[in-house]
């Protein structure tokens, strides 16, 4: 999918330890020119360490990183380029806007250190400020700006001198909810407009889904899955990915049959139903009799007050309404099935009473069998 020739950042076998603790292990990634790649994972998964290694703010224990034409660090070849020589831009969580300079001086800094001609400098800086919509505040001191504006200054500062790649270290997590969404859209727009290669670190899965061309899901220092947002959401490779990205109903059970794309899982719900055989997909590489997870998204589940018939009959389960909460765009209903709970998303309003008996069902192709 990514042409090796046009790849802007190439990371091979990256490894980083802090004392005895392994922060990142065997990390391999190739980022194409103009691509927006997100490193996503819970805190402590190694995503920030990876980003800081690319920036040159951390040294490596093994592996190699290439940016553009240059190998910027290689443990084997004993190469380490200082951050300022890597032709990168970086946006930090804390904005890191220099408080003793004006907005203009902040943004122009990268050009100044590169010895850009005065006329060019003014032109490029003004252009960068226009891109982020701050040209009217150029003479303001950075400390007089709001959080969102400061983050825009940081963004303009990072793109102003046209680096090979721009690195984002959770840049939105200090902003409040409404502003976060707004900045999120702005960064995506700007990135597409400028076409700059970007690597973005976040722990917020919705940010990752909305912004990225590709997502790298990390957990416990290791890459769990790489793919575009849709495929990661709809085809997670394991229960961690399924649960971390979006909401997933996960049920543990035993794989008892595979037939074409469909497979059969036996789940013990621990109630009158006792065990129930459900149909699902994706059991191809798994062995019969193995313990597996069945994963179903809340929006793929149908809830009805009557027993369904037809295609979904096999995957119809009886449950009791625990509660429903109104989340604005939709209702979220928790259904108790034996000792298990299931979350169901209902797009249009329906009157559901606590304790009411309901039937939940899903199409076999919307269920996914995942290794335990």
């Amino acid at each position: 999918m990514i042409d090796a020739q046009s790849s802007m950042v190439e990371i091979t076998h990256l490894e980083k330890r802090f004392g005895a603790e392994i922060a990142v292990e065997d990390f391999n990634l190739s980022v194409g020119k103009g691509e927006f790649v997100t490193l996503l994972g819970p805190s402590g998964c190694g995503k920030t360490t990876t980003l800081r290694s690319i920036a040159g703010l951390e040294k490596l224990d093994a592996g190699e990183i290439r940016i553009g034409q240059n190998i910027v660090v290689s443990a084997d070849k004993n190469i380490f380029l200082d951050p300022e020589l890597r032709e990168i831009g970086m946006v930090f969580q804390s904005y890191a806007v220099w408080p003793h300079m004006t907005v203009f001086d902040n943004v122009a800094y990268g050009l100044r250190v590169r010895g850009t001609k005065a006329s060019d400098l003014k032109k490029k800086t003004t252009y960068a400020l226009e891109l982020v919509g701050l040209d009217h505040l150029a003479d303001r001191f950075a400390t007089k700006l709001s959080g969102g504006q400061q983050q825009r200054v940081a963004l303009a500062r990072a793109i102003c001198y046209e680096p090979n790649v721009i690195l984002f270290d959770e840049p939105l997590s200090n902003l409040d909810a409404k502003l976060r969404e707004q900045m999120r859209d702005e960064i995506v727009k700007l990135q597409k407009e400028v076409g700059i290669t970007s690597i973005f670190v976040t722990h917020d899965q919705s940010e990752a889904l909305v912004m990225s061309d590709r997502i790298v899901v990390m957990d416990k220092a290791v890459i769990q899955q790489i793919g575009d947002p849709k495929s990661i959401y709809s085809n997670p490779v394991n229960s961690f990915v399924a649960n971390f990205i979006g909401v997933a109903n996960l049920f543990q059970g035993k794989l008892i049959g595979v037939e074409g794309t469909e497979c059969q899982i036996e789940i013990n719900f621990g109630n009158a139903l006792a065990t129930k055989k459900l149909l699902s997909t994706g059991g191809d590489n798994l062995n019969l009799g193995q313990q597996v997870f069945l994963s179903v998204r809340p929006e793929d589940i149908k809830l009805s007050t009557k027993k369904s018939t037809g295609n979904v009959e096999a995957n119809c389960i009886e449950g009791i309404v625990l509660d429903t909460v109104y989340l604005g765009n939709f209702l979220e209903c928790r259904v108790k099935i034996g000792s298990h709970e299931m979350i169901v998303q209902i797009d249009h309003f329906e009157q559901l009473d606590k304790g009411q008996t309901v039937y939940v069902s899903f199409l076999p192709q919307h269920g996914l069998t995942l290794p335990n």
Partner: protein
Amino acid sequence: MAQAIAPVEPVQTWRRFLTQETIVTVIVGLIVAVAVILPLITLVVSSFLVLDDLGFDTEWGLENYILLYTDRVIPKAIFNTFIISSGTMILATFLGVSLAWINARTNCPWADYLEPYNLIPFFLSPFVGAIAWHNLASPRIGLLNVWYRDFFGAEGYLLNVDNLWGVIWVTGLFFTPLVYLFVIGSLRRMDPSLEDSARTTGAGLLRTTLTITLPLVTPAILSGAIIVFVTSAGEFGVPFKLAAPYGWETLTTQIFTKAVGDDANHYLGATMSMVLGVITVILIWVQRVYIAPRSYTTVTGKGFRPNVLDLGKWKWVAFGFNLSYIFVAVVLPIFCLFIVSLHPVWTAEIIPSDMSMNNYVKTLFWWREDSIRAATDGIINSFILAFSGASIAMVLALVVSYMIHRTKGFGSKVLDILCVIPIGFPGIVLAMGVLVTYIQTPIYATLWILLLGYITRFFPYGQRNIASIMLAISEELDQSSRMSGATWFTTLRRITIPLLKPGIFAGWVLLFVIFLRELSISIILYSTGTETISVGVYYLANFENEALTSALSMTQTVVLLICIYIFRRVAGKEALSA
């Protein structure tokens, strides 16, 4: 399960103003206001009173101010004060910034162990430091000069501290921790991504240091420098020991000469104090209004460690530099005091066979016939003053902090200003104010006037200790106690004070230390029978010999070192940076 609170009679509005809270705070507020304002006003007024030739009557006039220009000595003293303050500022800033940078930002070996020792001079008496350095490096009897002559067979001397340079050297060494504390806090709290982003933007290490790091700590450096300038202008002990006897008078030594003694002219003393006071007020105002608000230290959510620079082999140079500072500022003077104190008379020669503890016996054992009253009384008085002074001051500080940071009225703003005034004020100036105010009252020539002077001048230090913690703990902690049904007083007792306990104790020890070594206030306000340790040292230096002086100085230093140790154990590292 419901245990409802019994219905309560509604409280009428006018009675709302008679709560526990308002009664306590108003009374304490008034006490503080009177204690701080009265001496200052009296000082200003007295500076315009001119004593007639007979020394009995006074009349209004500007003659005192005219004398500032026309007197034979005073203009020179003002000039010398300026030289000393500037020199001290430069030396202390250079040392303070270098040491702070080495400790906060380089891989200097064992920096963690060195740090507490860098701060020791802050707690010791500069006066005692001057005495020690006099014994180390005066031309004739200085130990270093003696060794120089012995080893190299040379004539004359290597070092001479009995002049303005000597004063600058000693005050510079002793005030270095002031700059150090300001700068190291700023360097440590700086968000490392401010520097990281310069690096990723393309600036090299040197450029980042010059265009980002240095400008960001500049406000802290300037603040430290100004505080050093002001403090050294008000320093009395060092110029009194090293400069005045050799013909270099300063403002403080002149104030002392004019205010104490048989032909004392308090009014001229007050006028000279005004000069020092005005300089102080202007500089402190500049620091607070223009420099402190520019402090850029940003607080980040993530607790990153600051960026550390790998110095390579140079780290040993940094280590050596730091070690040298501790050696000349702490180890060498204390060693010298100890050696000198063991000899019956100091003849600039170490004679092991003469060594004894006799000097300690004379200055410590108050029950013996041959003890020296000024010394033994001084020790007892100092402990009484330090203990009661620190306790009273901390109670005041607690209530005042509460008023400033928890009640938001006009009164709290006034109090805030009142608490700033004494902080930078030279002790000798405030002592002059206290002296002219209370000289006609019964408290004059008692320990009470010293106590009053101490508390007025230093309770803001304690207040700051409490305030820094009070600002850090949310007001909601108090409010939730009120919401739980506790009254104001119960909340104070069970929540506020326990939470502030580390701050209160740290403040108490700090004041205890300051009071134990206090000289500039004591020297103006003491009289026979109310000497303090430092006054005792002054007495011995003037009327006895160097060996006895060193013995009492050594005693004071040891007590202070013990206090520092306790302070660090209890308050931890953090409390100091307040």
